[in-house]
């Protein structure tokens, strides 16, 4: 555990990529495979099902140190993290012990599930007494399953590749899907053999960056494949050995949630992997994302929901064909094979993504204006000659999104953030005018620079009107320009509207609150 805690400290104390990789390489060089397996498990963002609610941890720590509830709320709000709050509240450890990471997990942490609440508490309190501050924090993170350490999948992949001498793409692929954190897994992951047995394993997704300038810089339009950019859920459909697996981009297996797609997948030949977008679709057109949201997170899908919100997989890429990995083939080649394949299976739940034909970027720009009416976010641009790459890369795939909606709104509530923004008032609620009153209509958490955020934080502290637990209402004085992607009617919101992906575009220090927009202006934007 000490070795793993040291790794955590090193990763946490630098923002430099090379130092993070060096820290991981050092760790993997020294750690036994049984520990390395768990380290990889956590660093790749996996976690055991949450054992203990984070709230419970901080409550136990508060009880142990005789701290009243209201004071605990203040502490938590200053730290922004329950596991850390609990670790900080406790006095220094009386004595110290060191147990390897895998033993912590396998003989201590995972068996907690078998215990009742009181036993669990006694157990955790006893562990706390033997750990120093940082180890205690890491333990708490493991217990609550909220272990994040600022290491991307790509960084972990690079560290493992560097340490083992296996190429990055292979490591990335072997890290995908479901696996158990065992020494055998580590051996297979870092093996120079090329047998990969897991039938369900998806490929790493290729992700696009947003195009911030005119597509003219991309060269001739003929070199590019242009498709609508849909607002759905990115997914990979794997068909092997008569079985089908649907993976979300978060590497979550979501087969059970979309039975109609899985049923259609039966028609695919073995050795096929498709990349596409899950969309709610009825009467020949896409439904708003809010409809699709009703299907997300539901493990069991009722008949009514299945009928009201039918879902399909709009397919746009082919990663495995006739049992072979074809990611190295050109975009155009893959597209042609995909079109042939989908035409042959002919399933309405597996349609082919439409290509938008045009002979110039100018003409495309005109067509792009239809995006809002079509309920899409703009275009995807894919270089016809490019392979299917791993992770987010510049150059071959671009999102050419339409400009967001914008509105000037007034800051009325603020709350302290978490993580990097802990203890800063960085989470805001904004209002617009409605018949002479300010009506809250959106929350936003991002978009300001650190310096601006500190200034707003200062403003909030000096202009607080009322406190409601962690939330403060502030004197309406500051105006911000907000951007959002989409707008819908909503009964759940006081304003009667709901907006998607609201964020702060800029602080309008030149504007008085009287100049902020009205609810009517926003309603006029409704499609």
């Amino acid at each position: 555990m000490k070795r793993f805690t040291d790794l955590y400290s090193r990763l946490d104390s630098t923002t430099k990529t090379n130092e993070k990789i060096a820290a991981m390489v050092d760790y993997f060089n020294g750690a036994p495979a049984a520990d390395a397996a768990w380290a990889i498990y956590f660093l790749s963002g996996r976690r055991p099902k949450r054992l203990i609610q984070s709230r419970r941890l901080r409550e136990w720590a508060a009880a142990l140190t005789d701290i009243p509830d209201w004071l605990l709320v203040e502490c938590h709000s200053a730290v922004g993290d329950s596991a850390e709050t609990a670790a900080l509240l406790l006095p220094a450890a009386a004595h110290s012990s060191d147990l390897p990471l895998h033993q912590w997990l396998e003989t201590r942490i995972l068996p907690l599930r078998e215990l009742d609440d009181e036993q669990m508490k006694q157990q955790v309190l006893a562990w706390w007494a033997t750990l120093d501050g940082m180890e205690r924090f890491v333990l708490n993170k493991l217990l609550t399953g909220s272990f994040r350490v600022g290491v991307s999948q790509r960084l972990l992949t690079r560290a493992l590749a560097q340490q083992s001498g296996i190429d990055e793409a292979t490591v990335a692929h072997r890290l995908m899907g479901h696996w158990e954190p065992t020494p055998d897994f580590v051996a297979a992951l870092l093996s120079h053999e090329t047998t990969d047995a897991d039938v369900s394993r998806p490929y790493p997704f290729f992700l696009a960056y947003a195009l911030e300038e005119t597509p003219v810089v991309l060269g001739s339009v003929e070199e590019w494949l242009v498709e609508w950019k849909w607002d759905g859920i990115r997914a990979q459909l794997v068909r092997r050995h008569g079985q089908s697996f649907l993976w979300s981009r978060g590497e979550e297996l979501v087969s059970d949630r979309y039975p109609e797609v899985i049923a259609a997948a039966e028609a695919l030949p073995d050795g096929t992997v498709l990349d596409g977008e899950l969309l709610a679709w009825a009467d020949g057109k896409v439904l708003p994302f809010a409809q699709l949201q009703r299907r997300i997170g539901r493990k069991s899908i009722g008949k009514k929901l299945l009928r009201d919100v039918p879902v399909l997989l709009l397919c746009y890429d082919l990663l495995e064909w006739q049992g072979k990995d074809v990611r190295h083939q050109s975009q155009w080649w893959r597209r042609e094979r995909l079109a042939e394949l989908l035409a042959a299976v002919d399933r309405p739940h597996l349609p082919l993504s439409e290509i938008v034909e045009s002979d110039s970027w100018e003409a495309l720009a005109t067509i792009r204006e239809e995006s809002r009416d079509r309920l899409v976010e703009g275009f995807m641009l894919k270089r016809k000659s490019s392979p299917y790459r791993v992770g987010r890369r510049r150059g071959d795939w671009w999102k050419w999104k339409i400009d967001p909606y914008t509105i000037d709104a007034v800051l009325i509530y603020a709350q302290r953030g978490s993580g990097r923004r802990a203890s800063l008032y960085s989470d805001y609620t904004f209002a617009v005018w409605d018949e002479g009153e300010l009506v809250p209509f959106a929350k936003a958490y991002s978009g300001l620079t650190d310096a601006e955020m500190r200034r707003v934080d200062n403003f909030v502290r000096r202009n607080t009107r009322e406190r409601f637990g962690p939330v403060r209402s502030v004197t309406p004085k500051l105006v911000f320009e907000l951007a959002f992607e989409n707008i819908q009617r909503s009964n759940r919101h006081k304003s009667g509207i709901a907006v998607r992906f609201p964020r702060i575009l800029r602080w309008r220090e030149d504007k008085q609150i009287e100049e902020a927009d009205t609810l009517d202006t926003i309603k006029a934007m409704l499609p």
Partner: protein
Amino acid sequence: MSLLLELNDHGLYCAAGDFYIDPWQPVHRALVTHAHADHSRPGSAHYLIAEASLPVSRWRLGAEAPIETIPYHKPIEINGVRISYHPAGHIIGSAQIRVEYRGEVWVASGDYKIAPDPTCAPFEPVPCHTFITEATFGLPIYRWPEEAAVFGEVNDWWRQNQADGKASVIFAYALGKAQRVMTGIDPTIGPIFVHGAVNNMNRMVAQAGLSLPHSTYVNEAPAKTDWSQALIIAPTSARGTPWLRRFGAISTAFASGWMLVRGQRRRRSVDRGFVLSDHVDWEGLMLSVAATGAERVLVTHGNVPVVARYLREARGIEAYGLATPYGTDDDDATAEESE
């Protein structure tokens, strides 16, 4: 009935003695607890400070400022009000000001800490009826680690940087924290260099009789200095500036109480955070309040409502907040303010 010390728009005022403590506007008579800029402001017609504070206060207030000094523990009378200064353990020359009138005793503690600090006289609890306390770190999550352990980490970091060929740049407030860092680290590891702001303060502190390990002003460093072996002490204002370029590859660190909280560490985007504060932690605050025996506590700057409420509810002490503009000009206090 009016209180012995009350806030007005110039500062904390004693009507009986007709003087102010740490006023933020110019006044005719200012009693000043310590030389940080949020407590010690120029423009007043007369200043009374602790003896050991003279060189730094002179620097802060100007050569012409009418400053009178007083040794710790020596009582004097101002308009029939009995005054004495007592060590606050915050920085060199920092004082708690004891005010006694007709049998009633108040202590304005300014900023203080109870952790050991070789750069200043240690905090002494002064029995009083009313105690005015800061609350910069007034939450039970703030529990300072042993100083020796922290300096052990700093030394290790410095040695590791030397091995990696990187200059070690530590950001610390020029007055107080910088000197504490210098006296805490192991000067045999390598040469120490200081930024101009720190160099100025070091000179003032030396005039006050404090001996520091040898350091060189960065601008006077010999050509071809091997920065990779050096520890460089700079104020936070130097962070992210071109001034740092001369050192080549660097590792940066920040010495502050805020570094205890991970979110704060990450927000500073320094390579290392060392938990070193010149303010009292939660437990220290509670111990200090208890040691004064005060039946009333007034809380200024920091987590004011939290400390006041806790003292009322958990300790049964009459406690409330006092709205002052302190806590806007030193590293620890500015974590949530502008930099």
